[in-house]
């Protein structure tokens, strides 16, 4: 009995800590609630997945990660490759892929997966979601304490009950230190369109860069992301490095 009381008290303390502190960058993405990550354009779906992995899914606690994908998404954007996942510092062995034929089935699978005690996080890629479905998923997520990340297409605009919505687009990558002609660390622009956990942060634009070596995400200043064209091979220290190296 005493043990149980302790556990409850601990949970409360934990909860107060979490709500008391000012929410920092991912604003609860992958930690609690349902978060939507919408693509800015049709070709930005892979960028959404990348952002989800490096910002959100790494925060998932121990347990299985359920990746639900609707058939059309899987056909259009390919399946998640285990070797690619490993590149994001995620153990592909923890991921269970659920293949749903219809969006309805995918939503059902997400809700079902939230009810499982061994699941740390549920991610789903869907063409879109309506208010009722997102409300239902939010309630399930709150009740079971399993976070969910929904990857949505570019046409997802309307109001939903999700905790936050991100809008992600791919940005030209960082210049490679050793080869100016090669793509460097991937960069994304993530706009927090709305957020219930951090309403003050809504509308903020984050320019992010992912480092495969250290498996960390950096904020990049606007200035650095402005360049869409690679510097010419002759200029800059990149060329020098290449020659001496």
């Amino acid at each position: 009995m005493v043990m149980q009381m302790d556990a409850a008290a601990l949970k409360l303390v934990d909860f107060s800590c979490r709500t008391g502190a000012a929410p920092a960058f991912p604003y609860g993405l992958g930690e609690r609630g349902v978060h939507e990550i919408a693509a800015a354009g049709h070709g930005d779906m892979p960028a959404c997945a990348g952002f989800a992995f490096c910002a959100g899914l790494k925060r998932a606690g121990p347990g299985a990660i359920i990746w639900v994908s609707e058939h059309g998404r899987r056909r259009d954007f390919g399946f998640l490759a285990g070797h690619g996942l490993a590149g994001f510092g995620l153990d592909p062995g923890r991921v269970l892929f659920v293949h749903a034929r219809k969006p309805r089935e995918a939503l059902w699978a997400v809700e079902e997966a939230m009810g499982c005690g061994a699941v740390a996080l549920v991610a789903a890629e869907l063409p879109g979601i309506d208010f009722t479905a997102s409300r239902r998923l939010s309630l399930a997520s709150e009740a079971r304490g399993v976070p969910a990340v929904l990857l949505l297409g570019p046409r997802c605009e309307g109001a939903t009950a999700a905790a936050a919505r991100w809008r992600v687009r791919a940005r030209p990558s960082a210049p490679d230190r050793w080869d100016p002609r090669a793509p460097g660390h991937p960069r994304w622009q993530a706009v927090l369109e709305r957020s219930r956990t951090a309403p003050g942060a809504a509308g903020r634009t984050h320019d992010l860069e992912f480092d495969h070596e250290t498996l960390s995400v950096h904020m990049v200043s606007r200035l650095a992301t402005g360049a869409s064209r690679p510097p010419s091979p002759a200029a800059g220290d990149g060329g020098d490095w290449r020659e001496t190296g």
Partner: protein
Amino acid sequence: MAANRAARTGGVVPGLGFSDAMARLPRLESEEIDRAGDRLALRRLAGWMGRYSPLVARHGSDGLMLETTGCDHLFGGEDAMAAEISDRLDALGLTARIGLAGTQGAAHALARAAPESPAILAPGEEHDGLAGLAVSALRLEDASSRLLRRFGLNRIGQLYGVDRRALARRFASREAAEAVVMRLDQALGLRGEPLAPIRPAPAHSARLACPEPLLHREGVWAGLERLLGEACRELAWHGRGARGFRLAAYRSDGSVSCVSVRAARPVRAPGHALRLFGERLDEIDPGFGIDLMVLEAFRPDSMHAGRPVLSAELAGHTLDMHEVSALADRIMARLGEGAVQVAVPQSRHIPEQAERLVSFKGELADWPARDGAGADRPLRLFARPEPVEVLAEVPDGPPIRFVWRRMARRVARADGPERIAPEWWMEGGTSLPTPVPVHEVATATTRPERDPSPSGAERAGAAQPALSATHRAAPAQRAVKRTRDYYRIEDEAGRRYWVFRDGLYGDGRGGAPQWYVHGVFA
């Protein structure tokens, strides 16, 4: 031809020619035999006979064989069982003849030739019981039984005393004589005969007969709960769990509806199995009423007591595999077999074969710790590489511009090539989608077929584009494995792709190489 009872009393016997039959019975009504329909009806009846025994086999074109050992006590003995089967089939409008004996051959003979319909022989009585029946009841070929009749051997009992070697001499072929002896031995139980049931015998089964036919889902649900409780208790008693359950609802109108569920790991928790059925129970149609439900448990396996693995705890992820597989079972019960998959690494070089998505079988895949090759593999791969039109420098420059999914994209940065040669030590090729020849022409016209490499003599005019297009369309040529050069490229919007050129210029394995998009980076 076949004949019903009324026709047979008029002198028409099965096997008679049509004109003879019309001569004997001018008022005869005839219909074309619907053999396919008969087969289907017999198969349906075989499914329904599962209510009497789990082992039902089709027997010839017009018979069913049931292994009733251990089943008759459910109906109050063999006589009562035979009577009930006879009554039930009568009520369904089927004329049936029933023979019950210790061997298949004897049962067959009784059903075909015994004077009364439920004819029952106790085990060991075959010798005397069959003696008075006609030889044709022994499952012989027509020629053989005709020959035996010509010798005056009309009854099975007359065969008992015949010298077998003398019998063999009478027949034209040794096989025909041996067939007669074999059928006789099988009927008498001197030689074994296996039964080939339409469905394998379940490991455990539980049955629930309903005094009133069930018409509603609630009733089925309650019955299923009871059956699962019973089956799981039995599984627990044996210390096992089952990987599959099958619920058969036998309707009073002679049809069956079945639902099967599968589990990734052995299950014996009634609650879990009930949830699996819950997704599918609507498939059971009560129709005019269900009067018998049978639950069968398949593929039993020993259960491992739930204990967390210490190494898993040390490794940082404590996964309760029972919970995970319970979830996978529920999802697969609703979304279909194979809806839950895990990626399993393979020690192969070809990217699409470096991992395999397999259906979840209760185990997670073991991936090696990150080997540092992460950044150069895309997050998403296409199941089949998609052909693209590419403008690239010949022979091995990265793409400058490419058209993928009808959108032209200009390449801002590129890295590569990463050359992946075919695995010559593996059998079989990796077949790529057949490229449309238009693509090849496009490449050929953008870059005239001039050879900048010094090894031009080696290919000696082998690569005329027009010729190559026809060559590669041929199926024999498609299986040719070519070296691939992979490039990581980024377009002006910052979208990153993984493209490859299938083949080298002048490798002598077909025409000009074709380009493909294989995946996209995050």
